[in-house]
């Protein structure tokens, strides 16, 4: 079963768990399953149009899924998805 590693800023939404097991065969399924299991996390991962927020980066093991298959990136038992938020902002 794949595992999702949760960044510390979001752990209050996963009962303070740093790692969450999910039933999924793709990265997209895994993230959806996470948002179903922890509904209050959804709005911080996805924008209103259902897209992953721009600051939410997801790595399969040590590779960015944007350079693999994005949501379709295949997962196998033992794989780890890591959510790595970037930080951004600005005055306007």
């Amino acid at each position, binding site marked *: 079963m794949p595992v999702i590693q949760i960044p*510390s*800023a*979001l752990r*209050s*939404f996963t009962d303070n768990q740093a790692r969450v097991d999910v039933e999924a065969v793709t990265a997209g399924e895994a993230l959806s399953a996470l948002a179903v299991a922890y509904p*209050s996390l959804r*709005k*911080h991962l996805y924008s209103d149009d259902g897209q992953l*927020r*721009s*600051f939410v*980066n997801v790595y399969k093991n040590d590779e960015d899924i944007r350079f693999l298959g994005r949501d379709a990136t295949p997962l196998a038992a033992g794989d780890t998805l890591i959510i*790595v*938020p*970037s*930080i*951004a*902002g*600005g*005055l*306007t």
Partner: protein
Amino acid sequence: MGLRIDTSANAEICRHAEAGYPHEVVGILAGSAAEGRVSRVMALHNERADSPANRYQVSGLAVMRGESSLEAAGLDILGYYHSHPDHPSTYSDYDRDHALPNRSYVIVSVVSARVATTQSWRLREDRSAMDEEPLVLEAPCP
């Protein structure tokens, strides 16, 4: 609970913000989460070379590396600071849209290369706004 920034940490934020003017600067706030106290800051590189006067961005891996080294030193991550050159220390919609929950966002207004005001903000759980939190600076900018 609010946030308290130690003298040396605030001096480092001020130095960074003033040296970086008229560009935005950014860094990590670390210290004791239990006490709401910032004792160490880590300056990060603003990667928005296309628009550094009104934007900042730091890649996830760079943030993770910085946070990991601070946590390895026994510190908690409390949030991030950034500067607003010639602009108030209030958050923008862009700031709110990119904010993480459970973090303090300290914004430093820098006017004519001198820090004018400092405020700290936290994202609401529904992401609709950021609320100002009480902020104590142990000492003003040097």
